């Protein structure tokens, strides 16, 4: 019934729009909708779907031919698994014939599909953080990424610590790529800044009690503690921290940039600070910030449909938008899209303002990171 009603309406619309008959632009996406990466992958998928609907509601992507092309987004779940990601990439490239790929969610899967996509010469905009994915850019010709690299995030954190005279610091990180890469960046940044790391502990994402690690840290008497993980282990660590009665300043990573962290940790989260993209505190930004309107609009749209905002969805927003912008200048041409991506300048996204170049396929700088503090269960922009 409904279809019958829609049909004449659609025909009417088609007649009025200038380029309705043009062929769609097909873009692929691979997200970790299930598996350990799903808390990142699901908001990424939701954001991508939201953008697709939004763009198509406006008629589609305006290609270099001046016509509007509907955007067709083909999304696959890699279940946070490297093998499945590789097959998904091959399927997007050879079966769905996509012009570009958005994703994957995790660093491991992004590195796993690297060989496939580079050889097939398909541009990829990853939503995973590891710097290795795009460095060296000369070798990783076809790959770009939207999340801030660890060095960037950690750099802001370390400057924050140093500015407050917190020079004896302790570290506790989760034992997978996120924690490992965070530690490597932290080790380097603290050395450069002259801070002393008095403890380096690891814990597992499935750990149910991180008290022993924190007890060790307590014994090392640091002036500040940095915990690098995502919920639920990040929340458990936060609660254990409060239960142990530790009073020194407590820092976490951008991995806790969703409301679930605060829900799980409860009042123990109050006072915790972490470096993150500006999305969480969009409303508190200075009005002169170019990102502010973009952030507020995205947060409003996302929260209307899917619940509380988080920075992971923002990574997908940037990735899809970047690809769409490239399609506008290059059309359905893989090499052209790549070139267009590489020459992107001053793109105001959710994660930051992107300036890609042949030597930089991340294109962000420190302006993309702020310090956020949890106050009364809400995010506050730290000064």
């Amino acid at each position, binding site marked *: 019934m409904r279809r019958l009603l829609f049909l004449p309406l659609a025909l009417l619309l088609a007649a009025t729009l200038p380029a309705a008959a043009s062929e769609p632009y097909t873009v692929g996406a691979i997200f970790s909708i299930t598996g350990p990466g799903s808390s990142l992958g699901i908001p990424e998928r939701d954001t991508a779907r939201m953008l697709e609907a939004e763009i198509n509601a406006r008629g589609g992507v305006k290609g270099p031919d001046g016509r509007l092309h509907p955007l067709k987004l083909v999304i696959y779940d890699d279940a946070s*698994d490297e093998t*499945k990601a590789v*097959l998904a990439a091959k399927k997007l490239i*050879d*079966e769905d014939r996509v012009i570009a790929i958005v994703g994957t969610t995790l660093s491991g899967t992004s590195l796993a599909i690297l060989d496939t996509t580079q050889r097939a010469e398909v541009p990829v905009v990853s939503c995973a953080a*590891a710097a*290795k994915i795009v460095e060296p850019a000369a070798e990783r010709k076809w790959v770009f990424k939207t999340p801030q690299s660890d060095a960037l995030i950690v750099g802001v954190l370390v400057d924050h610590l140093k500015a407050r005279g917190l020079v004896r610091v302790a570290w506790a990180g989760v*034992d997978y790529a996120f924690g490992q890469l965070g530690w490597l960046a932290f080790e380097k940044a603290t050395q450069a800044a002259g801070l002393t790391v008095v403890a380096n502990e690891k814990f597992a994402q499935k750990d149910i009690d991180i008290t022993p690690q924190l007890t060790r840290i307590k014994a090392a008497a640091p002036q500040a503690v940095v915990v690098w993980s995502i919920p639920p282990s990040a929340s458990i660590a936060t609660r254990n921290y409060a239960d142990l009665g530790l009073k020194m300043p407590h820092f976490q990573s951008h991995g806790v940039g969703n409301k679930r962290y605060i829900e799980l940790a409860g009042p123990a989260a109050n006072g915790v600070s972490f470096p993150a993209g500006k999305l969480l505190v969009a409303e508190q930004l200075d009005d002169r910030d170019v990102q502010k309107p973009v952030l507020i609009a995205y947060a409003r749209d996302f929260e209307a449909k899917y619940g509380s905002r988080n920075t992971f969805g923002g990574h997908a927003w940037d990735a899809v938008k970047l690809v769409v912008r490239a399609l506008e200048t290059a059309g359905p041409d893989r090499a052209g899209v790549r070139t267009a991506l590489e020459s992107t300048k001053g793109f105001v996204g959710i994660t930051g303002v992107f300036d890609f170049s042949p030597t930089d396929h991340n294109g962000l700088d420190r302006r993309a990171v702020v310090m956020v503090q949890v106050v009364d269960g809400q995010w506050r922009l730290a000064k």
Partner: protein
Amino acid sequence: MDAQRRWRLLGAVGLVVAAVSYAVPSSYVLGILVFVALNGLAALGLSLVMGFAGQVSLGQAAFFAIGAYASGLFSTGLGWNPWLGVVAAVAAGAVAAVAIGLPVFRLSGLLLAMATLGFGVIVYYVLNNWAAVTGGPSGLTGIPPLSVGGIAIDTDARALVLVGFVLLLALGLAGNLVDSRVGRALRAIHGSEAAAASAGIDVMRLKLAVFAAAGGLTALAGALYAHYVRFINPSPFGIGYSIELVVMVVLGGVSSLPGAVLGAAAVVLLVEALRALVPALGASHGAAEYEIVLFGLVLMAFMIFLPGGLAGGRRRAA
């Protein structure tokens, strides 16, 4: 099946594989077949353990990982020829199997299964935490492709030819073995250890040898995986993959060597079919969620109703 017919059949399959790799342009289809062959090779190893030593290894993924890392590390860190890396990987897999099998094979089946599971978890932790050598959780990049006679195996079609050839060769050799004196002794052990020993068969040694062969085969699959994907990290080699291998072997029928490959094909194709099907059904969940439920139910159903597996053997598991 006698040896000549088996080799002729394998040869014919080999020709089909070669034709497919030449004629099919889609790297997706070729990629699926490569993963079927890689999983088939790994499952072949486990099927030797389950079908012929009568033991269950719940840590077989560890051998896959050992093979992948041995070859990956030798060819990147030490700059060896990748083929030398593959040889080292097979040796590492076999040695690791003997090292773990020597003490645990004296245990009853259940404890042995749990001990292999523990071994699998420990290997995973070592790969994940010994970052100085293994690259840790973020893995190892830049693994070179294998090359044959100066031709780099860096396309899906070439990889399929190579991995398919290795798999068929392994199937043929394992088939020969099972049909020989050694194979008879293995089947005898599976039937009755006491009677086999009374005929002068050294049960422990033979079981260890099977475990070593299985470790080597699974490690070989891991090494080929590393040079095909050219990136490895620990996360695909956890308990989940060990159990997936058990599912493949049970699906194919535990004592059937071609069955293991069939089981691997069934699992890989099922996953891909679900990926195509689930979004088409308009479900809000990811395909992987249904896949997990289905895996569990299929594993139970085959154990209960079809212990002979897809290949329809008469023997039962373990």
